[in-house]
């Protein structure tokens, strides 16, 4: 599913300048800052970042299902030309699942333990359209077939399935209403590698067949490389880099992306992955300047004062770094452990 040609078509989902904050005991945490991204029909976009970078929050914001202490402070979520943030709650509710659906992270907890799978899928369908019972059951059986689960088992309870099966069931549920966008939140974290592969292969095949766009959220760069046309890298609630997956991975324009790339396994080389030292930034009272500066081995004095903008380098690439232009030189340094250790020492210094 690499490189689809319809990227220049009108985007099916377009997020513009989204700001979101949480009210916490210590003050307001800026969970998402000025997030803009678009998803073309049938495209698959990977969203990478460490936990706490705001990627799951973004998915919830797109679905309009946020915890009560979260508030969208600005920006738009435009789905098929209509802004869901500005529109009524009811309009947003109707867009959920019918237009934008979701493959949840933990398949065991995401399914109601005391209701049959068929009832849980039927509920999703019937919330948005009426359907006679026989047609409904046929539809659910069909959904089970396309995700590769025995249709005989539609009336089972969640606990009767294995982890991989449950994840397939969740995919079936996500496709129930033939949505144009599917959000996937780390859809295979709880599964072993072989089952992970099976699930992604199935998902890719389904996307080619049913032509929905995917926004795949993960902390694992390898998953994005294998599955997504384009990539968005998030750090501290901001987008730090975006572009076609291959190009971004081959030649990153942001030190954080360089750091993520270090975690990738390399074939045939005896290579120890390098972790990025330090912790995610404080979002309640962020330090001035670039959010990544405190952990960046290449930070200049200016980085701790001025927040860089997300600037395009080519028509389809952009990065948020003062030194984006020198990245080719910096990339060779970024492959060395000492480079990162220096930051670690600095970060831990009193």
């Amino acid at each position, binding site marked *: 599913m690499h490189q689809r040609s319809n990227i220049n078509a009108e985007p099916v989902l377009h997020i513009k300048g989204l700001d979101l904050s949480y009210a916490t005991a210590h003050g307001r945490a800026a969970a998402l800052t000025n997030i803009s991204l678009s998803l073309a029909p049938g495209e698959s976009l990977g969203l990478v970042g460490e936990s706490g970078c705001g990627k799951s929050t973004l998915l919830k914001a797109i679905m309009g299902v946020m915890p009560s202490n979260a508030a969208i402070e600005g920006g738009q979520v435009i789905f098929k030309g209509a802004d869901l943030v500005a529109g009524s709650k009811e309009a947003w509710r109707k867009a959920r699942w019918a237009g934008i659906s979701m493959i949840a992270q933990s398949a065991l907890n995401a399914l109601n333990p*005391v209701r049959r799978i068929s009832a849980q899928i039927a509920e999703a369908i019937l919330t948005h359209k009426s359907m006679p019972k026989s047609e409904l059951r046929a539809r659910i059986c069909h959904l089970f077939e396309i995700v590769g689960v025995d249709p005989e088992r539609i009336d089972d309870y969640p606990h009767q399935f294995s982890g991989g099966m449950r994840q397939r069931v969740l995919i079936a549920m996500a496709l129930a209403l033939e949505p144009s966008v599917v959000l996937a939140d780390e859809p295979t974290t709880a599964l072993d590698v072989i089952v992970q592969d099976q699930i992604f292969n199935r998902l890719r095949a389904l996307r080619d067949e049913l032509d929905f766009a995917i926004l795949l959220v993960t902390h694992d760069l390898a998953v994005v490389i294998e599955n997504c046309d384009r990539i968005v890298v998030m750090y501290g609630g901001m987008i730090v880099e975006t572009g076609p997956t291959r190009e971004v991975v081959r030649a990153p324009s942001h030190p954080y992306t360089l750091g993520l790339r270090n975690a990738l396994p390399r074939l045939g080389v005896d290579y120890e992955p390098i972790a990025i030292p330090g912790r995610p930034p404080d979002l309640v009272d962020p330090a001035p300047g670039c959010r990544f500066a405190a952990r960046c081995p290449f930070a200049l004095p200016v980085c701790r004062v001025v927040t860089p903008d997300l600037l395009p380098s080519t028509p389809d690439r952009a990065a948020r770094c003062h030194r984006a232009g020198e990245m080719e030189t910096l990339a060779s340094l970024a492959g060395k452990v000492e480079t990162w250790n220096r930051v670690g020492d600095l970060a831990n210094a009193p």
Partner: protein
Amino acid sequence: MGRYLATRLSHVVITLFAMMTLTFFLFRLLPGDPTAMVISPALDPAAQEAMRVRFGLDRPLVEQYFVYLANLARFDFGYSFRTSGPVWDLIQGRLVNTLLLILPSMTAAYAIGAFLGAYIGWHRGSRTEAGVILVATILQSAPLFWLSMLAILFFSIKLDLFPTGHIVSPGSFPEQTWRMYLTWDFLHHLALPFMVNTLYQLCFPLLLMRSTMLSTVGEDFIELARMKGLTERQVLFRHAMPTSLLPLATTLPMILGWAVAGSVVIETIFSWPGLGLLMVEAVTQADYPLVQGAFLLIAVLTVTGTFVADMLYGMLDPRIVYR
């Protein structure tokens, strides 16, 4: 399922058997004349002696015990001292009255308590939640008989809305018949004890339901239900509430036991002619065969209720697999 049912049934039988044995020895081995249990001290000595032989009380205790068990199996609970009639005839009518008061009010208490508890758990952190918790805790802390006294004081004496007690107006039905329960008069008498008992008993399910809801609302499947486009009401009533009801169902047997025990109090204060009042009266009048009969019946009721509630829970929660 069949195997599980059999195991549970065998437990019920063991419990009932233990209960009967306990009752037998409780009524005979405690200090005092064991024969006073069956023979009215009001009779003259010669008649007492005759009774002693007739009922086999001159035989060893073990033998008496087996006779007692055999009699129970035939619903023979002995004879009342006061009326000299069979105990079973006296208690079976009272059982109906107790059930007519307790079952409706417990059902109402559970339904209202579960709803209200789910509601405040859903709106956690709100003022309503804090207020309801405070009121429920205070209500639960008041003795039931005292609440009943206040209710009578206010609704019966002051406002004259309801009668102060009894099941029907005195004299209107000299004999207990089923026709009695079909009158407005009966409902009029039922209203106040029903309301007081409901109000009191709903506190527990309410508080439990609330704390269960607090953990349910954080579950992923609740979020997924929202994402599916369900309205908040649908999420609450289709997912959050049914799931939270399960732990509540496990407490049903315990509550049923409390309710039956509570019936002693509420029946006494409202002069409601049920098993509880019968037992209190019989104790006061030292009518031991009657006390024993009423006590055994109450115990059987509690054990049976526990069993039914257990089965119900098994049917509600699909995660429970019977082996």
